[in-house]
C-alpha cells in the first residue's frame, strides 16, 4: 500500500515518454504498405492495429524498457529519499555518506547485474516478436 505513491511518482514520468515513442512508431507502421494491404482485405481496424501494427511498433519500446530498468533504479534513489522508503537506492546513498564502501559496492553490483540481465532478456523478446531478428541470432 505504501508503495503506491512512490511507484506512481516514479512511473508517471515514464508514461508520457513511452506514449510518445509508441505513438511515433505506431504512426510510422500504420503508414506502411502492408497495413494498406490489410485494409484492402477489409480486415477490421481493431485487428489491424492490435495484431498487424502493434507487433512491429512495440519493438523499439522493448529495448527502451530494458534500458529504463537502469534509469528507474537511479530515479528510485530520489523518490526513496523523498518518501523515506528503505530501498536499494537509499541504501547506497546512506552507505556512501558514512563511507561504508562495501555496501556501496554491493548495491551498485546488484543494480548493474539487474541491468545486465535486462538487456539480453529484451533481445530475446524482440527476437520472439520479430522473425527477421531471429535469423541473426
Amino acid at each position, binding site marked *: 500500500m505504501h508503495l503506491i505513491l512512490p511507484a506512481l511518482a516514479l512511473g508517471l514520468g515514464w508514461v508520457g515518454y513511452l506514449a510518445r515513442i509508441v505513438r511515433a512508431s505506431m504512426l510510422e507502421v500504420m503508414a*506502411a*504498405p*502492408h497495413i*494498406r*494491404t*490489410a*485494409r*484492402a*482485405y*477489409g*480486415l*477490421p481496424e481493431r*485487428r489491424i492495429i492490435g*495484431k*498487424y501494427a502493434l*507487433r*512491429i511498433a512495440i519493438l523499439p519500446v522493448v529495448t527502451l524498457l530494458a534500458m529504463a530498468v537502469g534509469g528507474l533504479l537511479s530515479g528510485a534513489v530520489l523518490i526513496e529519499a523523498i518518501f523515506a522508503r528503505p530501498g536499494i537506492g537509499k541504501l547506497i546513498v546512506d552507505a556512501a555518506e558514512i563511507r561504508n564502501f562495501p555496501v556501496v559496492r554491493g548495491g551498485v553490483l546488484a543494480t548493474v547485474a539487474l541491468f545486465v540481465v535486462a538487456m539480453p532478456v529484451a533481445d530475446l523478446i524482440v527476437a520472439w*516478436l*520479430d*522473425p*527477421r531478428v531471429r*535469423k541473426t541470432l
Partner: protein
Amino acid sequence: MNPPVLDISGLSIRFSGRTDPVLALREVGLSVQAGEIVGIVGESGSGKSTLALAVMRLLATGASVTAGSVRFEGKDILALPEADMRKLRGAGMAMVFQDPMTALNPVLPIGTQMMDVLFRDPALSRADKRARAVAALKRVGLPDAEQQLGRYLFQFSGGMRQRIAIAMALLQRPRLLIADEITTALDVTLEAQILDLLRDLRDEIGCSILFISHNLGAIAAICDRTVVLYAGEVIEAGPTAKILGAARHPYTKALLACDPSRIEIPTRNLPVIPGEVPDLSAPPKGCIFAARCPAALSRCVTHRPVKSLVGRDHSVRCHLIEGAAE
C-alpha cells in the same frame, strides 16, 4: 448484356498537400466486363496506381475525388458507407500490390495472414481456413504448401512472394482482381509464369482483372482490352490488338515506337519522346499531349479534344482523329 463489373466514368482526383494541388486524374472513364482482362498502360506518374486505389477506396489522405463515379456491379462505391465498402474489399474486389516484400506483413507467418483474410466467414473452422489457404497456395504452384504456412515472407524468393500475394487475393474468389505492376520486379521467365497463372485463374474462377503495367509486352500477353493513360487522362482505349497493332493517338504510337523489343535490328540510338510530361498542378488548356506531339495543330493547344470512336470499342481523344472523321 450484363452490366459491367467495374464502370468508371468522369473520374477526377485531386491531391492537395503542402504544394499546389495536383490534378492527378482528369475525367477518366473505363469499364471492365465480367471475365475480361483490361490493361492500363502508362508512364510512371500517369495516375495508374491512383486509379487502382480509387477503385478500392484506399486513396491516401490528401487525395479527393472531385468528380465522377465508380460503379462496381452497378453500385456507386464512392457513395457506399465505409462498413459496406469494407465488406466489399477482399470478397468483391481484391488487389495485389507491386512489391510483395513491403505489401505483406513481415512479422506474421503467411498462413496467419491468409487465414485472417477469411475472418468474415464464421462457418469456417480453423482447419477449414487452413485447408483453404493450402489449396490456394497449391493453386499458384507453391511446392509443399502445408509446410509453407508457418514461414515468413523473408524466407521466400521474389517470385514465390508474388505468388503468395496472388493466392491471398484469390482466397475469397473475388469478382474483380486488381494487379498493380505485379511483374515489374520479376525476370522474364518468372513474369511469363505469373502471366500464365493469371490467365488460367481468370478462366477457372471467372473473375475480371484490371492489369496495371508499364510493360507493353506483359499487356500484349494477357489483356483483352487496353486503356492508355497519359498524365492523368485516358487518351486511347480499345481492344489490345488494335492498340498495339493499329494505334491512332500520336502518344500511343510514340510509346510503341520507343519499345526496344519491337525494334528488330540492334541499334544504339533508340527512339525517344522529346519533351517532358506536363506539370499536373497546372495542366494545359488544350490537349494534354500537345507540347510533345509531332503533329500538333494550333487548336490542339487551345481546345481540349473530345473522345471519338474510331472502330468497334476503340476510342481516341485527339483532334487529328476528329478531323479525319469529319
